[in-house]
């Protein structure tokens, strides 16, 4: 086993801060929605808003980081190896077959991860972000002179925001589970904490995406 440095310091900070914020916002968000009572509605709404602004701030930094470091390329989708990876998770993982994908600094994510994370970044996050801001600034929106904006009802905004929250919840469950599918159950999690990932030295590195 060799070790390579995959996740840089900011990336790890971003990941874990985002994880904490998203879990917290799911908890408070579904309380605001009325699914249960936990912190009390007032506190939930207040903290949900604070967490939202924090997350938006974090995202701004993360977006800046992705583009200045070129790390955004890690999310360019690829079909190469995708069937092999799907086969691995549906069959190979049970039979003890080796993972068909090899992590490298230039290609951190297997093709399925690339797709999933891209979906989060390009669809779920923007939907949450836009619907959440519309939710926060609903009064300003309703007072807008642009009919298309002032005509949107709070119910519609809430519907989009809730739908995005359910998507995020489903992603979170899947993501949490898949983090245990390394060569040991804690391997991936450890890598996300330390930055160092164990790799099979005798397996060839995957071809980095362009």
């Amino acid at each position: 086993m060799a070790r390579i440095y995959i996740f840089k310091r900011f990336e790890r900070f971003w990941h874990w801060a985002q994880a904490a914020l998203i879990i917290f916002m799911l908890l408070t968000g579904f309380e605001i929605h009325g699914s249960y009572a936990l912190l009390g509605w007032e506190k939930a709404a207040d903290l949900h808003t604070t967490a939202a602004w924090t997350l938006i701030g974090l995202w701004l930094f993360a977006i800046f980081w992705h583009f200045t470091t070129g790390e955004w390329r890690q999310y360019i989708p690829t079909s190469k190896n995708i069937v092999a990876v799907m086969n691995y998770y549906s069959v190979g993982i049970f039979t003890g077959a080796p993972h068909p994908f090899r992590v490298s600094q230039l290609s951190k994510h297997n093709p399925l991860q690339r797709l999933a994370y891209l979906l989060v970044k390009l669809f779920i996050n923007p939907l949450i972000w836009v619907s959440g801001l519309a939710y926060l600034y609903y009064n300003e929106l309703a007072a807008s002179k642009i009919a298309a904006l002032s005509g949107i009802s709070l119910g519609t905004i809430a519907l989009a925001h809730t739908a995005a929250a359910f998507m995020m919840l489903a992603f979170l469950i899947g993501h949490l589970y898949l983090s245990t599918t390394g060569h040991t159950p804690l391997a991936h999690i450890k890598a996300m904490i330390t930055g160092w990932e164990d790799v099979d030295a005798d397996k060839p590195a995957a071809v980095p995406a362009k």
Partner: protein
Amino acid sequence: MRTGIFVVALLASMLLAPAVNAASEPVPAKLLKSTSDHTKFKALQQEFNSGPEVTKACLSCHTEAAKQLHQTEHWKWEYKNPQGQLLGKKTLINNFCISPASNEGACNSCHIGYGWKDDTFDFTSEVNVDCIVCHDTTGNYRKPAGLAGNVIAKTMEFPPGSGKIVKGINLKKIAQSVAKTSRDTCGACHFYGGGGDGVKHGDMDSSLAAPEKEVDVHMDALGLNFTCATCHMTKGHQVPGSRYAPTAQDKGAAHLRGKEYKTIPTTCQACHGQAPHKKIAKLNDHTDKVACQTCHIPAFARGGVPTKMSWDWSTAGKMGPDGKPLTIKDAKGHPIYMAIKGDFVLGEDVVPDYRWFNGTVTYTLRSDKVDKNNEPVQINRYEGSASDGKSLIWPVKIMRGKQPFDPVNKTLVVPHTAGNDDTAYWTNFNWDKAIAKGMATIGEPYSGKFDFISTESTWPITHMVAPAKNALRCRDCHASGGRLEKVPDIYIPGRGSDHARWLDTAGWAIAVLTLLGVLGHGLGRVILSKRNH
């Protein structure tokens, strides 16, 4: 010689010392706020034998006052609303004492005039205007029921034939003590609407005479100490802020002194403006849909005086075992049954009902058709909707009643209740006679048949504003089964009935299926990895 100088010096010091002291500590004269002392007016230095005599004296200086009063609803008891309905106590029917018509002797003790005992009353008479009832400061001014607004100036037997001697009030002293209106003068009528303390409004009763902060943050006797007129700022005796023409939504700015405004001074916004919440700015986002009163008057009848929530006239007329009119009281001593009126349900600390309200109120008039297929009859209807752009969610008191009507002519009826005559219901307990007399008095047809019909009336809740710390909390409405559960056509975060059922069902189903999927996958890994070992 020396002794002489010493004595002179001593005397001088004794004489001068007080003068020096007086110069350094002048005794302040009590500063009067008014520029006039009514005890010094010649016109008031006389014995008065009646109310109109006092008014005549008032008008000798305040030459235009009666003319101003003649233009008020307080005088006319008549108001034409924007829909063209003729409203006002003179003609309206409610579901409390029903109507002052044919009962003027009793009811019109709350008219700001003297002697409105029937339809011969002269509404153009200046001396018939009662100045004192609003401007008394002694608390001794009384207009007893039965005298049509007149006062007892000379000690007399009252009611006549009762054997009770009522002392005359000292009109001279009262007239010399007049000043601005107070919570007591307005309250003398407005606290007692519907026939008793707190009966009618729910947000106005005698507890507002000197309220604690918790009961009314503005009128707080030891705090801001508002009078009614602090908000109901009159101009030329015209009082703004009538429930016949309510302002449901005020989009105007807070009023600055010296500036002219088109908006009325009685609304919350007239002082607090459009964005009054400084600490939690999100609360300002509610003001486009929710009236201030909805959150800031968490309950009405909070001052220890109950209000009537329902009144069933159909059970009136029961006699007790002693053959006398029956009265039943609750544990606190408040009547819940009276032979002359029927059954009541009282309420204290009542949570209001909530309605979309745009300021338009439509009334069921004496001429309008009612029938038992459309119960309860809406004595008045608050108009409004989520989408008309003029409505806010308002707290209201819904008064439920059961009152006499004419099933043949299909109209609500006016019974003659108060009086010393054979036809008055409160004397003879005979509905036939009472209704026949009442309807004859107002000159409207009566078939001779009567029945009882359920009615509802709606009253705005706008007084008894609580301190901010007692305002509603988010969860009071942002929840399923909350205060606004029944308010339609608005999305309230946290209210389950607003959720798209399909989304919640699908969302949780996907989450649970994902969880089951990964758990199954994990279980498979565990089992198979053990087998492989």
